[in-house]
């Protein structure tokens, strides 16, 4: 899933590209949420006594529970979410998907073993590994989102790519996903843990694409090559090249072609017919719907529709659904708080770590002085 070890690498090389903050600081922001990943998370995490929540006839409802309450949590915090669903997987992903299917089979076998042995912890563990997001789950989630008055987009292909396109077009502020691909696709702002459970009290992690590039000293294409070297969903990697080596190589040779030309083939094995070029193309120009054709509208929730959909067979408590709807309506009625950064421009980084060389300090202070200090002290005598 995503890019192998990228988040750790960013934390090591460009820590300033990651910012942690509370969910409430994202009020007023429109955010594209990777829906498929969300559903998967909910299916795994939303459980009662280890089992998924189900309707009267045993159909899973964990994903709906998660979707309903986490969406309300976002709306309640003034965030305007847009859900983006995966389309068909790109052909290149077939390798990765086959691998995942294999793992699933393995897990299935182990699950059977565990059941035989009666080891409950193991049963639970493998049960979770077998979780799949089915077409039915997706259809139900879409229906729920529609009833809640929240817009969703169906991507032609990968959801992360569509999210990134929306961000680039300025339609939304950022992408919320756990998948680091979003950065490779060029989403300027990427948020992790936005849809995490409130109880876990995880801060939202904001990755800034620009700052990542700056920290790595790479341009967009070089960054994509780095991600491919580290391991993405679309092609294999050179065996023996980990994150650290990948960074070194990109810094020296700037692209994969040159790296291959200079590679010590005795030490590293390049996969046969390595199709990194197609993977690269997929990152540079992914199949997405043109953002200008997408209209995002947040409308009033359909209260009766939601009650009908969630209560009854799906066994949601009517009181809780109705109080949830009230929260949605309330969040829509209040006007949005503005932000100061949208009125005043941030000055070019004038922060001077105080123990740095003095020259730095002087130039920084000169910058600051331009804004306010000068005006304040004009004509005032110095006290010495």
């Amino acid at each position: 899933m995503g890019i192998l070890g990228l988040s750790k690498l960013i934390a090591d090389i460009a820590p300033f590209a990651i910012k942690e903050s509370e969910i409430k600081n994202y009020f007023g922001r429109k955010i594209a949420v990777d829906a498929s990943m969300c559903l998967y998370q909910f299916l795994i995490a939303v459980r009662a006594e280890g089992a998924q929540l189900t309707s009267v006839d045993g159909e899973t409802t964990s994903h709906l529970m998660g979707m309903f309450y986490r969406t309300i949590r976002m709306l309640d915090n003034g965030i305007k979410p847009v859900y983006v669903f995966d389309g068909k997987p790109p052909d290149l992903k077939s390798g990765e998907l086959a691998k995942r299917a294999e793992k699933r089979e393995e897990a299935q076998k182990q699950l059977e073993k565990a059941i035989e042995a009666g080891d409950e912890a193991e049963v639970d563990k493998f049960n979770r590994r077998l979780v799949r997001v089915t077409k039915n789950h997706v259809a139900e989630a879409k229906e729920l989102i529609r009833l809640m008055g929240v817009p969703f987009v169906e991507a032609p292909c990968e959801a992360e790519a569509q999210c990134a396109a929306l961000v680039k077009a300025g339609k939304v502020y950022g992408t919320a996903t756990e998948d680091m691909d979003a950065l490779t696709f060029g989403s300027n702002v990427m948020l992790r843990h936005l849809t995490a459970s409130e109880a876990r009290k995880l801060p939202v992690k904001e990755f800034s694409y620009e700052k990542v590039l700056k920290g790595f000293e790479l341009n967009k294409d070089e960054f994509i090559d780095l991600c491919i070297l580290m391991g993405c969903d679309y092609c294999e990697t050179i065996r023996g090249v980990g994150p650290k080596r990948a960074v070194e190589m990109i810094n020296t040779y700037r692209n994969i072609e040159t790296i291959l030309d200079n590679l010590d083939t005795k030490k590293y094995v390049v996969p046969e017919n390595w199709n990194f070029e197609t993977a690269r193309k997929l990152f540079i120009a992914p199949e997405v719907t043109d953002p200008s054709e997408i209209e995002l509208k947040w409308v009033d929730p359909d209260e009766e529709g939601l009650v009908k959909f969630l209560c009854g067979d799906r066994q949601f408590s009517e009181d809780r659904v109705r109080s949830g709807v009230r929260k949605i309506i309330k969040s829509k009625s209040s006007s949005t708080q503005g932000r100061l950064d949208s009125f005043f421009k941030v000055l070019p980084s004038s922060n001077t770590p105080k123990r740095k060389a003095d020259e730095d300090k002087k130039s920084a202070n000169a910058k600051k002085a331009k804004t306010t200090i000068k005006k304040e002290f004009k004509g005032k005598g110095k006290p010495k």
Partner: protein
Amino acid sequence: MFEARLINATTLKKVLDAIKDLLTEATFDCSDSGIQLQAMDNSHVSLVSLTLRSDGFDKFRCDRNLSMGMNLASMSKILKCSNNNDTVTMKAQDNADSVTFMFESQNQEKVSDYEMKLMNLDQEHLGIPETEYSCVVKMPSMEFARICRDLAQFGESVVICCTKEGVKFSASGDVGSANIKLAQTNSVDKEEEAVTIEMQEPVALTFACRYLNQFTKATPLSGQVQLSMSADVPLVVEYRIEDLGHIRYYLAPKIEDDES
């Protein structure tokens, strides 16, 4: 070497009380013209801009420009250790990683030193353009604090509406609604009690009560407060600190949603 001596430690205490609820940490930028502080709160909705001029200090020396990042809660703890009539002196070496607060009692019989570690803060500075505001209201600071406190009970936001006749503060919520109108005062005995309005164009803006109430923590610093407003730009709430400088709060307005 940086050294700044203030006869009245209480002033510094009041300044800190005025900012410590809004900010957890901040950088004090010292130069030979004085001490400056600019910082936004976590949510980037409001901004504090503090200026203490060097000529307002009893003694002020700053050989090299110095940025001192301080934890405001810790600084507040230290200032609480001072007595009301104490003199305070802030001291730091040029490349120091700590700052010293020295309190001296009036009769010089008691001298206490507190050293605090500094921190490296990564803060964004905003360029604030000089603006001609459509409305500038001056009013007693106590009155403003009272209005903000009272209205906060009715709703999350306050609408400030300023016309020739006067200024109106209103809020509404589940309980009901509240309106407070202040007219321009014709004649007053004390300048501090006057309400004056300079208006080019009438404005009506909506602001979050929560922030206004945090700004009013500066009330003890000044008898008067000045509100400057223009359509669709942040409100400026200014408290002058007599003979020393000022503290300004900027607050982004609430915006009506176009999509809903």
